[in-house]
């Protein structure tokens, strides 16, 4: 069974907003899905379901696909970039909302308030927005990711958005596009020659964690195989060992994961490697308990409220885990470098002995001038629109 067929079977119903008729995405979905699954609608289905979703509504939403236009601004800064967190100059382009996979720790459980998996049909508008920013800002470097509110690639066999994005970024040689995924769906774009500035990145966890916490995702082996395919096709790679999940045998699990990575890839082949420990918003605990019980390593974990309001492992435990993963990589080759995602500067300091702002390799990632420049560009465009 090919990927498209699997996805077509996974969705119970496809709601297509009338405004999207004629768009490339809608035409493609109409050709892929049987007509009895498709319903053309004038507005979002289930208007009565709004606000905080129940566990059953959240689970159901993964099987209901809704295609509509996105009316707002596509291009947003990564939510990690808040005061108190060291973050990495990452901008996000959200072409959808909700994920077809089902990770126990997924932040969408406390974030999502729409009862359907939404895909925006107007990617061309997003690309136009990018072109406008590119033209109006004096930016030399910028990273754009598409995997914040939707997995970058798991639905790509349906949308083929990766192809349009890759072609667009061919025109922005100094900008970097990052696909972030837990799937192994790469065949749909791998025939395109790499423009050199597209990074395909994988969130990785040991296979025992994939099996117990990352339901519906590709196995670790399949993710790494897909990464090899991308490398061989000339695409840049990144790996996010995130979230680190404590479990009794965590050291052997993560050592095995590091070995699986270093046995297949050289440091030079991996653009960057990041890690982060499990964290979630306090309100997420209830829905996780309902959906995954307490046998999950996530719900049964020993977490505490931290200063920023999120729940995290004890800071010593986090540092122990970060140090362990870093040391494991360094054992194989000192050229492996990790950075920490969504962590406090104190964690950086206690784990690596330096602030992220002191590291030469990371300075570029954390370069605040890039952020200022994008903001300036956006402000100028808004002013132009108003006048």
């Amino acid at each position: 069974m090919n990927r498209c067929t699997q996805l077509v079977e996974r969705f119970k119903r496809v709601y297509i907003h009338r405004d999207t008729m004629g768009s490339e995405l809608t035409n493609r979905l109409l050709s892929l899905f049987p007509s009895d699954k498709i319903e053309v609608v004038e507005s979002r289905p289930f208007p009565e379901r709004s606000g905080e979703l129940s566990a059953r509504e959240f689970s159901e939403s993964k099987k209901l696909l809704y295609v509509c236009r996105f009316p707002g601004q596509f291009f947003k800064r990564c939510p990690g970039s808040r005061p108190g967190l060291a973050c990495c100059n990452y901008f996000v382009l959200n072409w959808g909302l909700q994920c077809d996979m089902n990770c126990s720790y997924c932040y969408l459980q406390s974030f999502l308030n729409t009862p359907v998996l939404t895909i925006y049909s107007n990617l061309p508008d997003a690309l136009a927005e990018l072109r406008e920013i590119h033209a109006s800002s004096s930016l030399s470097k910028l990273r754009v990711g598409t995997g914040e509110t939707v997995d970058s690639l798991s639905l790509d066999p349906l949308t083929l958005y990766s192809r349009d994005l890759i072609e667009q970024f061919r025109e922005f040689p100094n900008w970097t596009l990052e696909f972030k995924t837990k799937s192994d769906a790469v065949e749909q774009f791998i025939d395109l020659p790499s423009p050199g500035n597209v990074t395909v990145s994988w969130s990785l966890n040991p296979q025992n964690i994939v099996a117990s916490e990352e339901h519906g995702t590709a196995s670790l082996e399949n993710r790494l195989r897909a990464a090899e395919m991308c490398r061989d096709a000339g695409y840049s790679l990144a790996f996010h060992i995130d979230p680190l999940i404590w479990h009794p045998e965590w050291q052997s699990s993560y050592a095995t994961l590091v070995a699986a990575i270093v046995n297949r890839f050289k440091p030079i082949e991996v653009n960057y490697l990041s890690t982060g420990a499990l964290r979630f918003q306090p309100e997420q605990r209830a829905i996780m308990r309902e959906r995954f019980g307490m046998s999950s390593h996530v719900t049964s974990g020993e977490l505490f409220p931290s200063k920023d309001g999120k729940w995290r492992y004890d800071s010593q435990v986090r540092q122990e885990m970060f140090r362990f993963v870093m040391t494991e990589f360094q054992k194989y080759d000192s050229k492996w470098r990790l950075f920490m995602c969504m962590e406090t500067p104190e964690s950086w300091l206690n784990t690596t002995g330096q602030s992220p702002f002191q590291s030469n390799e990371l300075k570029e990632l954390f370069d605040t001038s890039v952020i200022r420049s994008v903001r300036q560009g956006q402000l100028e465009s808004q002013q132009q629109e108003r006048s």
Partner: protein
Amino acid sequence: MLSAGKLTPISQCIRSLDFGPRLSWPQALPPIAWKGILLHGFDRTSGAALDIGVDSMTNWQEAFVACHPRLGLAELSRLHSCMKAELPELLTEAAALFQRYGLRWSDRLQQILFVLRQMPLEFQDWVDEKGVGARDLAPLLAVPDLQTIQPHLRNLVRLAGTKSQILQVLECSIELSLLGQSLATLELQPGEDISAYKFRLESIRRPLNSKRDETWRSMVATWAWTNQVQGQWQRFGDQAGLEIKLQAFSPDDLLKKIQRLKVIGETWEQST
């Protein structure tokens, strides 16, 4: 707009909406009904009710909210239950009615209302007295057998503790029971106050960190603290460390004590 209304014998009124409001209707006023459905004054068995729905433009929601301007979540859960069982035709207006009480009608809210309705009345009253919100009660949604938790809830609300402490104990004990602990073993022990009780449950819930904290606590107690400089191992959310109490009576005294603290710092470093 409320009209003058019409008096109807209370024996002829429908009592389906008797959800057991906590506040009783003033004896000086006649019970209120809307088109024959009694809205308040459920304790009255004789006399007449003032029906404000007859020959007026007042809809039942307006009439109901006028009689019950403030209701707690548990009262609303009982009301919802009455509406569902006895007057399902009114359920279509549930969303609008609950909005008047500041609640967004949703599947999640309905689940909370259903669960709360199954809980002992003592617990329901506590929820309303303390103004507990729907989100605070979300841990109950994970309980597979609501009967088993009832004795525990009765005990919880009898504790002398703040709303926040009791809700934290509730969540922790639910998690522990889902992890296989018997609820009977999670009750308050003789001699425990709410803080000690909460601390004990959290220690069971986070055994590795508790063990680590306890080890540090014992070790820190053996360090060479001096008079007027005392320290103890404390947990502050996701961090644990030393909390130091220092009394100084002159700048010289302060400097001396800070100097002594350097020794503590070295001991700490050696212990890490």
